[in-house]
């Protein structure tokens, strides 16, 4: 029987030698997704994997200018920017001519037909339809005249898709008029989101709920295949309406070579492959090997890649890699439940906890210093963000913490029951909890860390059961309103205001700001809201994260931004350089 051993090993060795393939250099891009892809339906595009893939296939009326910062909205399927009425309530869009859906068996003869204004009405009704179970309904909820009524009737089976909605009018095939219930200056921002993309009724009817596995859009790339848990492949859409590379940008863009392709027709690349790689090591090694073109840096590989916070290690630079660091418009925070009888009614106690939290050490321990310390809910790169604003209690000071605790009525923590800190049951969540316990112990405050599964954690927040909780919010659009709504009184749990913060003055300012277009007057209101936040302290804001991207030298035109989706059409692969650099890897 031992004679089996040698042939077995020989066979395996032969298979290994056969398995070594020579890689062809294709005009293609490969990107590793950090989480598994769940859907290719723009109505379900809430997570980072879906928003990386879906906007390459689906398009809406508007998009962000690729290079301009701060972000500027520009037309995509709209023929120019919309006409907006003086009161901001009516937005009249013209649809670009010659925009066609991808070819699909859903259409007669399999040829994609031209997009009309009615397609947008259908797509947005579909978003509103409870049967779609979209996580993106909030973008239109309460904002378009008649759409909420249509949704309510639809839930009861009392209406159909062809029933008119007052706020969505289509005078002709190329005109779409949106009538709002109240001014909503973020409308143009939300229309850039994949949720607002146009989908063809024929394909939704053909595939039903499985439309998420058979996407048909209008974008520069069309769906080719998806093996769940492995990869999704998109290929160039030959019938795309076309666009050229932007000719405008900041001076730093010209310096970075980001305007070298100005005016050239898009897209540059023929094929996109998105690999589902939830584990850090394969993602990292595939990047170093050049099997993927760019990727973020996993936490555990950070020290191997970066020195002095923003410099790439020389050995990686020698391989032709470059590091891109960019701010994330997000906020990570510890929220106090303001309806809690202990924390909610005791500002000094909240201040004590804030003073006692050593943010600097936390930044090193948990984020490799890849963060900006947060002083307010408003994230960087957003209107209303002030880098000079400092929240007084973010200065780590145990003496001030002890004083505040004394003023709160709990000198040295005496008489204060342990505070319950709720967090999601992940390794990082537990580590954060343990760190908090250590920090608060220094002033005599006991913290009881309670971890929950994500659904249980959501349940607790929804039912206002948490005393203190850890949470993060990534901005949906570059307007502070998106962050400040987390503190708006009407949004208390089950809404996104999980701190259940209610302040009449804050709510008044928020409502006033909603009626104003972007500008100094609105910025002043945001500033006032930030002051109220600092005064009342419903959260301890902890950090705004920074994005770190490692990019191979052959990838051109990459300018990452967390809010800008669908950037693959602008990217170019220098094939000669790729061939040369890959030999070094």
């Amino acid at each position, binding site marked *: *029987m*031992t004679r*089996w*051993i040698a042939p*077995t090993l020989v066979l*395996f060795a032969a*298979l*290994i030698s*056969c*398995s*070594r*393939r020579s890689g062809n250099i294709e005009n293609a891009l490969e990107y590793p997704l950090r989480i*598994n892809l*769940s*859907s290719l339906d723009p109505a379900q595009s809430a997570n980072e994997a879906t928003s990386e893939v879906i906007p390459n296939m689906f398009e809406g009326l508007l998009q962000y200018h690729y290079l301009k910062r701060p972000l500027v909205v520009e037309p995509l399927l709209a023929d120019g920017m919309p006409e907006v009425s003086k009161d901001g309530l009516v937005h009249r869009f013209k649809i670009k001519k010659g925009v066609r859906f991808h070819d699909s068996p859903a259409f007669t003869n399999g040829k994609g037909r031209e997009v009309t204004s009615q397609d947008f009405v259908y797509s947005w009704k579909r978003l509103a339809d*409870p*049967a779609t*179970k979209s*996580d993106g309904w*909030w973008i239109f909820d309460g904002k378009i005249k008649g759409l909420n009524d249509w949704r309510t009737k639809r*839930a009861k089976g009392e209406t159909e898709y062809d029933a008119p909605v007052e706020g969505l009018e289509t005078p002709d095939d190329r005109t779409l008029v949106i009538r709002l219930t109240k001014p909503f200056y973020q409308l143009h921002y939300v229309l850039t989101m994949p949720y607002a993309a146009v989908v063809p009724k024929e394909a939704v009817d053909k595939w*039903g*709920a*499985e439309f*998420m*596995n058979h996407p048909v859009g209008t974008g520069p790339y069309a769906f080719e295949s998806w*093996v*769940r*848990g*492995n*990869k999704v492949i998109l290929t160039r859409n030959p019938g795309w309406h076309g666009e050229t590379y932007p000719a405008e940008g900041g001076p730093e863009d010209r310096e970075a070579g980001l305007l070298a392709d100005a005016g050239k027709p898009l897209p540059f690349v023929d094929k996109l492959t998105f*690999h*589902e*790689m*939830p*584990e850090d*090591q*394969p993602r990292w*090694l*595939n990047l*170093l*090997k050049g*099997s993927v073109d760019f990727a973020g840096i996993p936490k555990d590989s950070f020290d191997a890649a970066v020195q002095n916070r923003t410099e790439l290690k020389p050995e990686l630079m020698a391989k032709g890699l470059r590091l891109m660091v960019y701010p994330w418009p997000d906020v990570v925070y510890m929220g106090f439940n303001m309806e809690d009888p202990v924390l909610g009614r005791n500002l000094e106690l909240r201040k004590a906890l804030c003073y006692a939290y050593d943010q600097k050490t936390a930044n090193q321990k948990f984020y490799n210093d890849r963060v900006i310390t947060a002083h307010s809910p408003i994230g960087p790169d957003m209107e209303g963000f002030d880098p000079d604003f400092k929240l007084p209690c973010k200065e780590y000071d145990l003496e001030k913490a002890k004083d505040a605790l004394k003023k709160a009525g709990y000198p040295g923590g005496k008489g204060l029951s342990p505070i319950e800190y709720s967090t999601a049951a992940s390794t990082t969540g537990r580590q954060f909890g343990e760190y908090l316990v250590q920090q608060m112990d220094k002033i005599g405050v006991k913290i009881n860390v309670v971890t929950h*599964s994500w*659904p*249980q954690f*959501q*349940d607790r*927040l*929804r039912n206002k059961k948490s005393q203190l909780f850890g949470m993060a919010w990534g901005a949906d659009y570059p307007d502070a309103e998106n962050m400040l709504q987390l503190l708006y009184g009407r949004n208390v749990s*089950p*809404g*996104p205001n999980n701190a259940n913060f209610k302040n009449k003055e804050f709510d008044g300012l928020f409502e006033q700001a909603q009626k104003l277009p972007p500008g100094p007057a609105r910025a002043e209101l945001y500033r006032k809201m930030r002051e109220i936040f600092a005064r009342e302290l419903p959260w301890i804001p902890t950090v705004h994260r920074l994005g770190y991207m490692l990019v191979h030298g052959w990838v051109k035109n990459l300018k990452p931004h967390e809010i800008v989706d669908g950037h693959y059409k602008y990217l170019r692969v220098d094939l000669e350089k790729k061939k040369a650099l890959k030999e070094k890897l």
Partner: protein
Amino acid sequence: MAKYLVRRVLYMIPILFGVTLVTFLLFNVAGGDPAAQAAGRYATPEQIQTMREQMGLNKPLTYQYFDLVKSIFTLDFGRSWSSKQEIKTMILHGIGPSLTVTAPGFVLSLLLTIPLALMLANRRGSIWDKTAMVICLGLTSISSVVYVLAGQYVLSYQIGLFPISGWDSSWEGRWHYALLPTLIMVVLSLGSYILFFRTIFLDEIYQDYVRTARAKGLPDRTVLLRHVLRNALVPIITLVVLQIPFLIVGSLLTESFFSIPGLGGLIFQAIQEADFPVIKAMTVMSAVLYMVFQLLSDLLYALVDPKIRLGA
């Protein structure tokens, strides 16, 4: 034999009832409200109620339980809440990739470990045996994640023998990606299998019939293969047959690290997304497979060992 078979199949009914009941209670009664999860973080009670109705969760529990039992017999587990695909199709698509890695890995492991264990048992106490024992104990003491991490780093990244991760749906292409996970599976099982088989062979090797065979002057090879190995087949069959359900269900860890679209990854993602229909289907399917293969191993005992009389 037929009587035994019927009896065993009948025994499976209460076990199946127990499995389905526990699964149902875990997910439908104790596991939180799936409608609230599906409706999203900021859903109002009305929205959650609407979602509950759409998901059929407003039906009486007995009705929902009956649906689960029925699905085992019809093999119609419905559709995934997350991917909207038919669960039956998802399972069928996942079995191939899982088995591509696990089955060859398992066969290779057996081909390597059984002869090695037989040799070591025959040379018990020798320097070879002692060295092998230390190595095997070392191999079993190391976490399986370490093998995966080291395999990817050294063999794929540093030496470049294999792709780091990935998959090809075509049968010709998938071997390219399946080799490293297969090799890791083999290495993972080496230590424990050798220890297990060596113990079994040692139990046999000191039996009187072996001594008699040797006294008769039979060559070592004949003694080991015809007598020792044959008599050790019952525990070997137990291991082999009861391992098959696990081969089908795949390896969660390996599939996750290598982006293999198998059943292990399917379960992992279903848990992450609280996709209860998929979790329920996989739990019930695993239990049924385990019961079926347990029955099969019992039947095989009778074939390899005439002393065993089923149903006696």
